[in-house]
């Protein structure tokens, strides 16, 4: 019962957050120089003053700002994010087309980063003075300092050009017509470089966190007890300590999900990965503001959804929070 109540409160809070994003979007649209009709007229190559006035009425731009805001909120709440100038399609359907590719990239990168980051961190924590531990520190500093788009380009030069192991761009072989397992293998081959590039930053962060939190946990009393019972080091580390050491990493991953989405946007433009980032890049080039703001809204929606999910799974996993 209490769980349900927390859940409902969380949903309500998220709804308010999203409403705030909608209002932010509306403000941005109105603060930006030029309105949609100006852009439209610009694309048409000029129009008579009567036509411009008519268009303003059609778009509801003659009404007062609060009225316009209300219409905007209602429209967004119904799932109508407006029309893209450039593609002449509803923004929602454009985003929906691209969403699976972005999610595939983001989730793969997240899993890679958490798995390998934690693993590296744990091994480094067991022997904090060893060469390997120093190496993990160096790698994590380097992964963090390199701009992600540059890491991507370096990967392309190394593994697609010098040693042509992986395809350079896109998500599938053009015109191969493959399906089933061959298709999946093809997508997987295209996924490797973008996912590894995106994961590199977070791998750096998580390995550092896992190392610190593992060293912390390994110093605690219950671990000494476990060791004094004569359990093997492997059982102590991977069964007793890991559960507690991984909690900060999971929290961090949840908190940083919005940055991961933003990172995916840059990586997608490097690898021409057909996701939302590629779409955002196009929207910027063509000054397609409704599309750009639609992508901002939608990414926030995903982040909010993931936050609810992390929060709930955390509550289920860690009995102390219940």
């Amino acid at each position, binding site marked *: 019962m209490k769980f349900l109540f927390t859940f409902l409160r969380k949903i309500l809070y998220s709804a308010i*957050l999203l409403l*705030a*994003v909608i209002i932010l979007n509306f403000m*941005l649209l109105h*603060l*930006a*120089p030029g309105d949609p009709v100006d852009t439209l007229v610009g694309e048409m190559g000029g129009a008579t003053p009567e036509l411009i006035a008519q268009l303003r009425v059609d778009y509801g731009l003659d009404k007062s700002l609060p009225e316009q805001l209300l219409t905007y909120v209602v429209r967004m709440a119904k799932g109508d994010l407006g029309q893209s100038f450039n593609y002449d399609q509803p923004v929602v359907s454009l985003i929906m087309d691209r969403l699976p590719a972005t999610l595939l990239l983001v989730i793969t990168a997240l899993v890679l980063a958490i798995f390998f980051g934690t693993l590296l961190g744990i091994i480094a924590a067991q022997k904090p003075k060893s060469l390997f531990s120093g190496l993990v520190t160096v790698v994590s*500093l*380097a992964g*963090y*300092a*390199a*701009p*992600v*788009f*540059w890491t991507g*380009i*370096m990967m*392309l*030069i190394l593994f697609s*050009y010098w040693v042509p192991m992986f395809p350079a761009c896109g998500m599938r072989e053009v015109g191969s017509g493959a399906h089933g397992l061959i298709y999946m293998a093809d997508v997987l081959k295209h996924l490797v470089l973008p996912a590894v590039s995106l994961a590199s930053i977070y791998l750096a962060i998580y390995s*550092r*966190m896992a190392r*610190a939190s593992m060293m912390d946990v390994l110093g605690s009393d219950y671990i000494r007890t476990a060791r004094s019972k004569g359990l093997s080091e492997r059982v102590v580390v991977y069964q007793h300590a890991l559960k507690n050491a991984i909690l900060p990493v999971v929290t961090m991953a949840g*908190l940083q999900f*919005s*940055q991961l*989405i*933003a*990172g995916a*946007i*840059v990586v997608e*433009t*490097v690898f021409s990965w057909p996701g939302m980032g590629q779409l*955002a*890049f196009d929207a*910027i*080039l063509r*000054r397609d*503001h409704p599309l*750009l*703001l639609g*992508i*901002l809204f939608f*990414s*926030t929606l995903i*982040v*909010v959804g993931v*936050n609810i999910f992390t929060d709930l799974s955390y509550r289920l996993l860690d009995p102390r929070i219940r």
Partner: protein
Amino acid sequence: MFAANKAALLGLVLGVLIALLTIFGPLIYPTDPFEMVGAPMSPPGEDLLLGTDYLGRDILAGIVHGARTTVLVGFSATSFTVVIGIIIGVLAGFYGGWVENLLMRVTEFFQVLPGLLLAMVLVALFSPSLPTIIFAIGVVSWPPVARLTRAEFLKIKQREFVLAERAIGAGNWSIMWKIILPNSLPPLIVAATLGVGVAILFEAALSFLGLGDPNTYSWGYMIGASRDFIWETWWAVTFPGVAIFLTVLSISLIGDGLNDAFNPKLRLL
């Protein structure tokens, strides 16, 4: 202390070199980075030390002149970030109650938005220029600073020396800014130092995406400009990236070093 830490020392040396490059580089190497000075796509060492890009622009000149943009944006955006973050954090941490509640909700709101994407939207809507870029980076990066400041305030505001100040009649304003804030500076200095690196990475990404100031040369812009020619001119995308990498690395090392120096016992993450 700080000097005993080899990594931090390395960071400091790198930082000094970058500072020298920023200040004196354009005087020593005055070649205009926008100018076509050599044969297009000439590899490093042939004509010019680091080669030319697809338009025949000198890569070394770009790196030398681009350093100013990077450093300028890094420091101004961070100052802006720190000012917003400290004001919000101080008010929330000091007053508590509904003020804290409201300000922390606003902070959470900004943390849910994907930072780089919001920065892209802001710069794209309000035309790319150095002030909009600095503004956009500040707007998306202040929440962690605000949270940190608030946490420090919550920790310090019940300490004896603060209560003593209050007992001798110090007002809210002076307790906030003259008593508590100076005592919460060490972690804020570390956060600000690391923030410079984050701001530089933001600027690089924006310029790479074609959202840089068109009148200034920057490292991110160089990589973005040559991105269609990475097979033909690997040097044009590699060297500017190395420059960004070394700069951010130097800042991270200095930040970590400061952190260790401030908390000798507590080696933070």
